């Protein structure tokens, strides 16, 4: 990277971009024709085109949200977004066949290296579509499907048709409507009955072009008694104009199944990250969201779980770091719809250099959900006087046997802790870094080792120069 580029990017180490070399690029702006063209280009069945068109009309009619950071949301110019950009003609199975410029990007992000060491499968998505995809042979032999969503629709239309939009219908919110209209890429996973995918599978999402909109769609189905851990990473270059990332992720955990979905979102500070994520847990199933928000300009993301079957369990661990100009509006939603369901939500946030972090949560117990238990803990650290932290929890309890707790606290780094570490020879900056890493530790320990190390490094970078 040139020095000039380095200066523009600042601390954000993934802020580089490669020259755009699109094979197909749609004009900016959205219309019914754009939606139909995307569908036609992908050779989709008619039912999918119909869903897309219906969603497009819903998107156009639906008002922008009237809650959250409305000022920041008002800055999205939907007419200045490229809704589809194809950068490679096909999805490669061999890393060597991936176009050089794209390969270089992912090499710099460390993806192929990680795959060799510790992953069960990898999808790499560049702009609108997946450019590389692989899965370990033993998993394939056991019947595990791990495809990019476009291939999933082509190869297993019956499964996609059965489950697509069942957890998050297009009419759920304005951005789920937008995603349903123009979705492209994402992952499609089906784990057959009783199969345990021991190693995590990973998808990596990269936006490279300016004013790009990435709308990946992920659908994960874990059949009875199976389990899977899916890891997702996201980065984008730093531009002066904004990009839009609006994904929809649907998880379905059948009886006794377990799905863990880990994300470390590290978009550059010009990306609007407006994502709808929701899972359904059937009888005795578990859905876990491990959600890290470090980057983006505005994130609005509230991973949700519908506990639909008796004995189902939901777990959400969420951390957010809001630096200069960032608003991390994150949280979690758990709906207890069946008896004896349990959930636990842990949210941690740090605000620094005028950043704003918000926890927005919903805990609902319906009258049918007897004997359910839930615990919500939100902790926020404020590192300077320009920053801001908000907590907006909602608890709706419709069954008297529910046992629920919510606690939240906002504070600064304790002077005692700083003093203790400094008296043992650390500089104030090091001490602060250690405290922040320790604060996020309940999150990092849930991540695969490589991600945890990377996250700690990222935080240390963000913390540099935070003293004085």
């Amino acid at each position, binding site marked *: 990277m040139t020095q000039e580029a380095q200066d523009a990017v600042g601390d954000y180490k993934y802020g580089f971009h490669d020259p755009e070399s699109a094979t197909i690029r749609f004009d900016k702006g959205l219309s019914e024709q754009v939606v139909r063209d995307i569908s036609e280009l992908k050779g989709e069945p008619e039912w999918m085109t119909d869903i897309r068109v219906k969603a497009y009309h819903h998107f156009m009619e639906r008002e922008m949200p009237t809650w959250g950071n409305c000022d920041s949301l008002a800055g999205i110019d939907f007419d200045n977004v490229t809704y589809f950009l194809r950068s490679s003609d096909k999805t490669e199975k061999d890393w060597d066949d991936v176009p050089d410029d794209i390969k270089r990007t992912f090499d710099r992000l460390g993806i192929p290296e990680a795959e060799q060491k510790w992953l069960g499968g990898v999808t790499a998505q560049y702009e609108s579509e997946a450019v590389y995809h692989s899965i370990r042979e033993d998993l394939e032999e056991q019947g595990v499907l791990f495809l990019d969503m476009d291939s999933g629709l082509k190869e297993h239309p019956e499964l996609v048709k059965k489950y697509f939009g069942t957890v998050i219908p297009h009419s759920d919110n304005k951005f789920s409507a937008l995603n349903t209209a123009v979705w492209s890429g994402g992952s499609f996973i089906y784990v057959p009955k009783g199969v345990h995918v021991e190693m995590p599978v990973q998808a990596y999402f990269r936006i490279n072009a300016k004013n790009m909109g990435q709308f990946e769609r992920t659908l994960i189905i874990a059949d009875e008694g199976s389990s899977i851990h899916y890891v997702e990473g996201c980065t984008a270059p730093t531009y002066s104009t904004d990009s839009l990332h609006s994904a929809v992720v649907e998880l379905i955990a059948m009886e006794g199944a377990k799905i863990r979905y880990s994300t470390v979102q590290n978009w550059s500070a010009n990306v609007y990250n407006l994502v709808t994520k929701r899972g359904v847990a059937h009888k005795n199933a578990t859905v876990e969201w491990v959600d890290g928000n470090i980057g983006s300009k505005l994130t609005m993301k509230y991973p949700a779980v519908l506990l639909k079957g008796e004995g189902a369990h939901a777990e959400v661990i969420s951390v957010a770091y809001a630096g200069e100009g960032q608003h991390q509006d994150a949280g979690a939603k758990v709906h207890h719809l069946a008896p004896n369901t349990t959930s636990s939500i842990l949210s941690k946030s740090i605000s620094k250099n005028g950043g704003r972090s918000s926890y927005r949560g919903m805990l609902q117990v319906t009258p049918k959900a007897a004997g359910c238990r839930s615990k919500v803990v939100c902790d926020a650290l404020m590192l300077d*006087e320009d920053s801001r932290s*908000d907590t907006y929890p909602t608890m709706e*309890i419709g069954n008297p046997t529910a*046992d629920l707790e919510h606690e939240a*606290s*906002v504070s600064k780094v304790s002077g005692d802790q700083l003093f203790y570490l400094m008296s043992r020879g650390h500089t104030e900056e090091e001490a602060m870094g250690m405290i922040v890493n320790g604060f996020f530790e309940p999150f990092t320990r849930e991540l695969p080792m490589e991600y945890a190390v990377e996250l700690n490094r990222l935080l240390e970078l963000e913390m540099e120069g935070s003293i004085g």
Partner: protein
Amino acid sequence: MTSYLDANVPSRSEHLWRYTPWSRVHPGAVDTVPQVDTATIKTEDFGLATSAIKPLPTSDIARIFLNEILQETTTIDCDDKDGNIHIHAGGHAVATHLHVTCNTASNIVIYLHGEPDWFGLALTGDVNANAQLSVGVINELSTDTVMVRVDDWSVHRDARFELATLSMGGHRNKSDIRSTLKGSNASLKQFIAVHGHGTRHDDHHIEIHHQQPHTNSHLLLNAACDDRSHSIGTGALTIDDVAQHTDAGQIFRNLLLSPSSRAEAIPELEVLANEVAAAHGAASAPINKEHLHYLMSRGLSKEEATSMIVEGFLVDSFSGLDSEHVRDEMQTRLTVHLECQLIR
């Protein structure tokens, strides 16, 4: 001043009106401003004076509405006095506005009685520098009454203010209680006990705004909901960027006693200063079986044991009150009410 008929009826997406829409607590059709009577206020302990209406802030629809229907403001001379005030309401629609200015120290308990169809209550006050004021409000209105209550309190430098509410009357209540800590070292303690029975719908919205440094606030809301009652507690705690060294805590506790009872708790927190300790907690649970077992093993029936636990839970709401007069009145009234209600 904003006219009610020109104001927009708030939608349910607004935090304040989410669970109790304005149309359900208006005395008639929302596009009307009905004639209302003034409630009778009696006290042997304080001096009262009436004057032209002191306008309420026009920050929301209920206050704008009350500004139009209220006919006068009653000011209480309370300095260095302790005692009780009885507000009696009757007829179709009744409203009253009480204003308290405290310069020294005072302890006041306000009783709300009567059987109006609709009751509008505005309570406002200034707790001036160095003053100590403790106010208790006991709602013993008829089970058919719809009540709208709005409070606006200002707590100034080095002042101490306690505000306790015992809510057990009325059919549908919407209380919007706002306090602003306007001077450094100002302190606010707020306690609310809600007993839900029958089909009572009781919605408390509590806003606390820290505008100055070294201020502290404490809020405790305990709600016990029986039968088909519904309790809502929403909090909005704001700490301004200049309000460093603030200490703020909010606790919402719900005890659900019957399968058809419901409770909502939304304690919101907006913190713009960093040298603060701000925390909130919310919990909801059924009666602890171990507590029940303990009491029953000592010979109490299940009903007796349950009512004892409920009583302990609600009476405890007021144990943090510094004012003995207010604490005793609140706890005594609560005990009497629960004895009538619970052991049937």
